[in-house]
């Protein structure tokens, strides 16, 4: 088992596996998005209060989920990079930061688009989740900036990994400190386990879209790591052979 894991962490091996999987994953992601968007935007019933406008949750909520999940993945990769000096994990830290920052920006952007018709304002200072999402964006930008400041990208990745791990300790603290402000954001609709507030005809497409976002993230992460491997291993013979085709 451990042997297989270490074999996978060899860049060359990972490149081959990623190349084999990527076409399938891409097709699956594209199909999944088509189904999920049709389900959410057309099949699911309109909300009795917000009408059709609520449908933005099928993009907004998965983006917000992913923005946090990607940070966790990034910190996990950072731990592996620091402890075992695995090259792939170092690359994953940076690529996760890029993708996570985009998911966070998407969650913020769609949230503002949703807030304008619903609350009558683009930005609501009293809303805890908007604020912690913005802070999360700054945390991502910090990781990216720190990584890019180092000429040696391997060292940059390990320094950024320390920051990512410090951030993961801080995220719950930031979240709760901001939460104890007055909030007008509607309460969480999915994580109330006793009785979900959203009807199942709206909830299922949402969970499906969430899964598709995870699939999308995995696909793009794999593709980005694959390119980065080729870049970093450019002087190796196998990379030369790949380039010649």
């Amino acid at each position, binding site marked *: 088992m451990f042997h297989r894991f270490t074999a996978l962490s060899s860049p060359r091996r990972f490149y081959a596996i990623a190349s084999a999987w990527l076409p399938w994953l891409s097709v699956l992601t594209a199909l999944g998005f088509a189904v999920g968007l049709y389900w959410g935007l057309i099949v699911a019933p309109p909300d009795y209060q917000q009408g059709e406008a609520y449908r933005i949750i099928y993009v907004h909520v998965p983006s917000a989920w992913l923005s946090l999940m990607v940070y966790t993945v990034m910190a996990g990769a950072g731990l592996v990079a*620091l402890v075992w000096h695995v090259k792939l994990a170092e690359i994953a830290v940076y690529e996760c930061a890029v993708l996570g920052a985009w998911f966070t920006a998407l969650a913020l952007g769609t949230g503002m688009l949703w807030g304008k018709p619903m609350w009558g304002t683009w930005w609501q200072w009293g809303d805890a989740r908007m604020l912690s999402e913005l*802070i999360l964006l*700054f*945390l991502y*930008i*910090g*990781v990216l*900036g*720190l990584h890019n*400041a*180092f000429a040696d990208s391997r*060292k940059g990745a*390990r*320094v950024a990994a*320390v*920051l990512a*791990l*410090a*951030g993961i*300790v*801080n995220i719950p*603290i*930031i979240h709760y*400190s*901001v939460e104890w*402000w007055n909030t007008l954001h509607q309460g969480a609709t999915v994580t109330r386990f006793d009785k979900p507030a959203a009807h199942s005809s709206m909830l299922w497409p949402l969970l499906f879209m969430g899964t598709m976002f995870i699939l999308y993230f995995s696909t793009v992460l794999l593709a980005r790591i694959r390119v980065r491997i080729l870049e970093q291993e450019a002087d190796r013979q196998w990379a030369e052979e790949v380039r010649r085709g």
Partner: protein
Amino acid sequence: MMGRAFAAVFRRELRLAWRRRGQLLQPLVFYALVMLLFPLGAGADLALLGQAAPSLLWVAALLAVLLAQGTLFSADLEEGGIELWVTSGVSLGWLALAKLIAHAMIVSLPLILVGPVLAGWLGLRGEALWVLAASMALGMPVLCWIGALGAALTLGLPRGGILLALIVLPLYIPVLMFGAGAVHAAVEGRPADGALLLLAGLLFLGVSLAPLATAAALRVSQE
């Protein structure tokens, strides 16, 4: 061995700080200057100033702490001190703890003493001054330690200053919210002990985790 190493690092920091005691005043002057800028910018509206004072006092103190971080490890790096730390065989986190506690005392104590004076200048009275001093005593060390982590992460970078602010300021937010929140509560006559207890919690979390994180960052910088 560990106790002696701890004491040696701790005493060295304090002695260096004492020999450069003129520099200790600089953050205080900065703090006072920023607190002078706000009333001038706000047009001497006393009612507005009184309302905003808790936030202003805390934000300015936070910036003063931030400014004191940039060069925290740079002399150690140039003189090879960090290399010696790493190769000394004593736990790096333990040495970092000594440095961080000394650093927090050197930077925080003057600010904590001056904070209530500036608060009185801005028109805060009575209990709010005590709450401000208490919140700063609990919060400033945490700000110092987060800043020290940032200084260790940006160590050796030619233009680390703005980057340091960029990575450290988001992590400062909880301390600022609880600190300013406590003073706001005291000004409005509400109990402030909840926010103060949360600050105390952050203080304990900080003293347990910051040395480890700083040590990890220093080790990476020496690779």
